[in-house]
């Protein structure tokens, strides 16, 4: 009897302890994003959320080259891996239409989160689907755009400044137009500086994912490229392959041919950072997201920043960045929404910026101290007001691969003319939209 009651007590105690363990066991949220500097900043920031809520945060970061493939596969297979996802702007259409993301309108209304508090281009780019409609699928989380860095120390060398002025009749300064850009790039190309041969510019040329498209559009937008007729959606002939678009594409090829380092035929973000850090190029195209780390690594004397140059048809730059979404297949939706509510707070957004993330909240961006808070902050503000983005349609991946092929074939592989490339692209996209039932 004694043995029996002892066993019973042990069992009861065990059960009680087990239950207590379950009760105190913290919920864990998994957040998925690309592996890069801002993701590390988010890990740091999220520690505050865990402190406040008791919800543990787990992170699934994958390299940019496999970011889209990996997470779109997760979403398409209705995987529960990610509770929260910082998804690329182009995913919004597919993720909304295919039910991968939770629609956030009701949640925003209930919790007083207003999209008018966020910079308009980021709301349009990261949150809305269909575009220009008040249907929100993400919270603007990481503002980003293409910007430029230049070697401040080289631009400041008196002998180079003198030579440039004699040659071009103006001061050697960060270029404001593509004509000026060409002059500066040609000026530095193959020059020997500090005993080392250097090159004019670094531009995106990557073929496999999105690189060359994210690069070439920065010139093409300024020369009149449009994705379709603003008055008649999906009418692309005359817009994608307009004379201006052709000219813009020719200029990108000219930059590639005249002013880049040898071997840069399949290069994207990391190759640009390496080329710039190692003192190989005078000017580098890259995403603003990398600038805090780059500035820290190189120091104020060596690095300067400028916005994408303008062209005869306007002044634009390619939108990057991502929105924060709750995955509809998550079992932890309540906690994921709790995280989003926490992340949207002005104080958290302010800390996000200070840690190296790019807040999209107007309260942070419009703060009078913002432009002076980092050497690239002012240019970031300017850039975010002149962004254009690639298609965000559910079939964006097909559209992107078509453009990658046509542009790379022309720019890097010398195949056909710019007009042929854009006529071909118009044909490809028309076929894609027909297949998707949009035409």
């Amino acid at each position: 009897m004694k043995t029996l009651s002892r066993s019973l007590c042990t069992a009861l105690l065990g059960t009680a302890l087990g239950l207590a363990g379950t009760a105190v066991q913290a919920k864990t949220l998994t957040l998925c994003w690309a592996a890069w500097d801002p993701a590390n900043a988010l890990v740091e920031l999220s520690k505050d959320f865990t402190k406040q809520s008791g919800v543990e945060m787990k992170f699934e970061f994958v390299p940019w080259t496999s970011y889209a493939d990996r997470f779109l596969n997760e979403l398409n297979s209705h995987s529960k891996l990610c509770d929260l996802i910082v998804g690329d702007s182009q995913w919004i259409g597919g993720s909304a239409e295919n039910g991968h993301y939770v629609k956030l309108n009701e949640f925003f209304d209930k919790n007083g989160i207003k999209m008018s508090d966020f910079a308009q281009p980021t709301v349009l780019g990261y949150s809305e689907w269909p575009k220009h409609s008040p249907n929100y699928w993400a919270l603007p989380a990481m503002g980003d755009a293409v910007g430029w860095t230049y070697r401040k120390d080289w631009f400041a060398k008196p002998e180079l400044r003198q030579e440039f002025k004699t040659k071009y009749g103006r001061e050697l300064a960060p270029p404001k137009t593509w004509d000026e850009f060409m002059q500066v790039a040609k000026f530095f190309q193959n020059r020997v500086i500090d005993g080392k041969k250097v090159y004019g510019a670094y531009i995106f040329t990557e073929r496999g994912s999105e690189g060359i498209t994210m690069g070439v559009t920065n010139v093409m937008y300024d020369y009149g490229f449009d994705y379709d007729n603003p008055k008649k959606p999906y009418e692309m002939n005359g817009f994608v392959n307009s004379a201006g678009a052709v000219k813009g594409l020719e200029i990108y090829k000219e930059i590639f041919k005249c002013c880049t380092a040898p071997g840069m035929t399949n290069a994207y973000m990391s190759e640009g950072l390496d080329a710039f850090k190692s003192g190989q190029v005078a000017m580098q195209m890259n995403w603003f997201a990398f600038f805090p780390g780059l500035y820290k690594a190189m120091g104020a004397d060596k690095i300067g920043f400028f916005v994408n140059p303008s062209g005869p048809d306007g002044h634009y730059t390619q939108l990057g960045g991502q929105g924060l979404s709750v995955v509809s297949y998550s079992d932890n939706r309540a906690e994921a929404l709790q995280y989003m509510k926490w992340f949207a707070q002005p104080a958290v957004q302010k800390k996000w910026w200070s840690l190296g993330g790019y807040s999209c909240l107007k309260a942070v961006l419009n703060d009078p101290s913002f432009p002076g808070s980092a050497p690239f902050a002012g240019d970031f503000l300017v850039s975010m007001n002149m962004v254009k983005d690639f298609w965000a349609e559910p079939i964006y991946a097909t559209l992107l691969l078509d453009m990658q092929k046509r542009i790379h074939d022309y720019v890097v592989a010398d195949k056909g003319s710019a007009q042929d490339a854009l006529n071909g692209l118009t044909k490809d996209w028309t076929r894609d939209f027909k297949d998707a039932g949009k035409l």
Partner: protein
Amino acid sequence: MSDRAISWLFISPTLLLLLAINIFPLIWTIRMSLTNYKANMGWMKYRSVGIDNYVDILTDSDIWEAMQTTAHFVFWSIFIEVVLGFGLALLINRKFRGHSFWTTIILLPMMLSPAVVGNFWTFLFQPQSGLFNYVVSFFSGVDPASFQMIGDVKLAPWTIVLVDVWMWTPYVMLICLAGLRSIPDYIYEAAEVDRASAWRRFRSVTLPMVMPFLMLAVLFRGIENFKMFDMVNLLTNGGPGSLTETVSITLKRAAFEKWQTGWSSALAIILFLTVFGAANIYIKVLNKVKQR
């Protein structure tokens, strides 16, 4: 239980496995190739498109370009591998000091994974820091940064040939060596008695007797290179532009990046039939050569 029943009992697991992993996917692929199915939108309804995918592929100029790229790669890589592999086999077949050591050294490249080979040749071909350009520069005096193998329109198609030759020539050599070792000594002795010259012995004894082995090597390498993916994907990723885009890379892009499952299934069937048909014709020729 009868002997027949027992034999069925023993072979049925293998048969079932083959049906499950070979025959069923093949039939399923054929079925998919007649639809507009997209695997990334598996929940959406798809419809039959008849032979539209096949017509689309066969009239697509990009596919024919990829076929030409593949043909260039297959022809030149095999041609060079056969010449070099046979030459090496003739050398290795002789007895000399360090014979085993050199044989092992020659065989090393084929023991590596194509993914590893693709990756490290990418570094070797870097114009500014790669060893390849420096070696060329050392022998020719050309500035190492003045040319690039992977990014150059004219050189890129040869780059994939070069790496494939580096990796697979030892394989052809091994097969040729097996052929050379299978020739009985008495044939050479008889030829010597008949005062046949070295060239005559090579032409009338060595070459005909090694020919079936050589043809086998060509068959194996031909099939392998026709569907070559990993090495090319890592080395050039089909670039610059689509200059080194072999059909298997086109297939991968359509199937797993554009998610055109129906279309890519049709392309896979076309490629399968091409390899299957060519291999069958080739084997018939091979058998005729053997009978001679």
